[in-house]
């Protein structure tokens, strides 16, 4: 039986009004603008875009503000907004080799064409809190160095020349890339669907799983072959025009993980690879994604599946933080009737248990 109970409307209304006030904070301070969030908390905005699976800095900044800085709440807001928009189509695959690079490092080659470009990185900072930032001191403008434009081939293409590394990863030519937002996930998945799920998966969850592979739970000896961050052009084919149309540019982070592989019956010893590609400047996420992508290829590479990070259904079913938070957080919603039923059941079980105890005592007494 379903019993609807009404009530709490005034409480809910007042709670939301209180939320709006607390979100506003001290009214003697200016309200933070979306432009300030987008430009000064840009990595928070990038994470919301990547896991919200929607590239729009203005909307992601609004979500961060509305969620009072709660990242998963902001991601949830962006995902919900996405569903209200019509879909115009699929873009051509972005070409990361033609990226306007803002950072590019390789841990496998010191001298690679195009060089090691540190870009705006936290690496090599001392991780000491900077009291100057608490003041309003303006930092120096960046140093600039004019250099002739140099091609920056992907590191994987350099290794490929020797034939010691597997190719980029192929699926049948006529395959239309899977879209987990359109078809409900079914296991086993193809790698294209997994990559889509991982790209919008929770950074913390994927980070922990990637870390677990390094600690021995599905070890695969990774090297960061290359990480690059920068803007790529987005192009689309539309029916009304007979040429690909440039929509603009988006910032992405790409990670090419290179992993040792001893070979199998089918494949000679060579380096294998894991791939990460995410919206915005999200290096940790792209690295974690590529570790998980490689771990999830265990079956394809004839490796024993022994660890959580290699278990496709486990990883893909739990990496979406919007689904996860929905199911965990729904526990706090009223379950009064469910609980009443459980309470009745536990009372009955307790009664039966106590009667059983009594019987045991009488039987023991009778035996004496």
């Amino acid at each position: 039986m379903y019993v609807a109970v009404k009530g709490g409307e005034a409480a809910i209304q007042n709670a939301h009004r209180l939320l709006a006030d607390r979100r506003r904070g001290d009214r003697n301070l200016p309200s933070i603008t979306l432009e300030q969030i987008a430009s000064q908390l840009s990595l928070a905005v990038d994470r919301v875009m990547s896991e919200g699976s929607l590239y729009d800095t203005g909307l992601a900044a609004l979500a961060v503000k509305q969620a009072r800085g709660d990242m998963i709440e902001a991601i949830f807001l962006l995902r919900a907004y996405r569903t209200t928009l019509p879909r115009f189509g699929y873009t051509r695959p972005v070409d990361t080799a033609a990226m306007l690079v803002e950072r590019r490092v390789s841990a496998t080659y010191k001298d690679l064409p195009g060089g090691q470009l540190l870009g705006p990185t936290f690496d090599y900072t001392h991780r000491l809190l900077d009291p100057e930032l608490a003041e309003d001191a303006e930092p120096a403008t960046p140093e600039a160095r004019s250099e002739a434009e140099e091609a920056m081939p992907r590191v994987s293409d350099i290794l490929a020349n020797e034939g010691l590394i597997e190719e980029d990863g192929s699926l049948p030519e006529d395959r239309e890339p899977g879209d987990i937002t359109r078809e409900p996930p079914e296991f086993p998945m193809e790698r294209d669907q997994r990559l889509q799920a991982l790209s919008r998966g929770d950074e913390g969850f994927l980070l922990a799983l990637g870390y677990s592979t390094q600690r021995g739970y599905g070890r695969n000896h990774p090297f960061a072959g290359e990480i690059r961050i920068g803007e790529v052009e987005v192009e689309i084919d539309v029916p009304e025009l007979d040429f690909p149309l440039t929509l603009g540019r988006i910032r992405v982070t790409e990670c090419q993980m290179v992993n040792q592989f001893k070979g199998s019956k089918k494949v000679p010893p060579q380096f294998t690879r894991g791939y990460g590609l995410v919206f915005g400047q999200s290096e940790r996420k792209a690295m974690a994604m590529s570790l998980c992508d490689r771990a999830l290829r265990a079956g394809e590479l004839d490796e024993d599946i022994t660890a959580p990070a290699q278990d496709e259904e486990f990883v893909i079913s739990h990496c979406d933080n919007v689904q996860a938070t929905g199911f965990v957080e729904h526990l706090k919603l009223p379950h009064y009737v469910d609980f009443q039923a459980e309470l009745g059941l536990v009372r009955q079980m307790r009664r039966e248990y106590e009667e059983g105890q009594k019987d045991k005592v009488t039987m023991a007494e009778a035996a004496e």
Partner: protein
Amino acid sequence: MVSRQERQALTEQRREAMAILAMAGGSELLALWKEAGLPEDAKTLRGPETGLVTVRGRMGGGGAPFNFGEATVTRATVKLPSGEVGHAYALGREKMKVRVAALIDALRQKPDFQDQIEEKILAPLRARQTEADAQRRAETAATKVDFFTMVRGED
């Protein structure tokens, strides 16, 4: 008759112009449009409307394609009283910008306006975009690691 090569060149020019307009900042484009004083009379056939495109990448960078997320896109189509139809698409939600871009695409098809559009709108936008990219490249280049070898020991 227009030869195949000429047609290709025209298509390439149109593609490049549409790319510049798509990448222009909204307020930047609207200011140049206002200054250029071109005719605004046109019928809106579609939009401007905002929707989504699903962005694709390639596994390993160059392998099989996969979907990795959506992006907001705004599009518009206009028709001039003389019949030319202009289209525009751009990332983001700037409806005014995209409608103006569609108008410019339509006007570009009329020989009378081509030079004016090139000179007053496309050239300044192209110059600013090239300059901004060069600045970004130079700032990144300054963070390039110059390795040097330390000589240790004697001889």
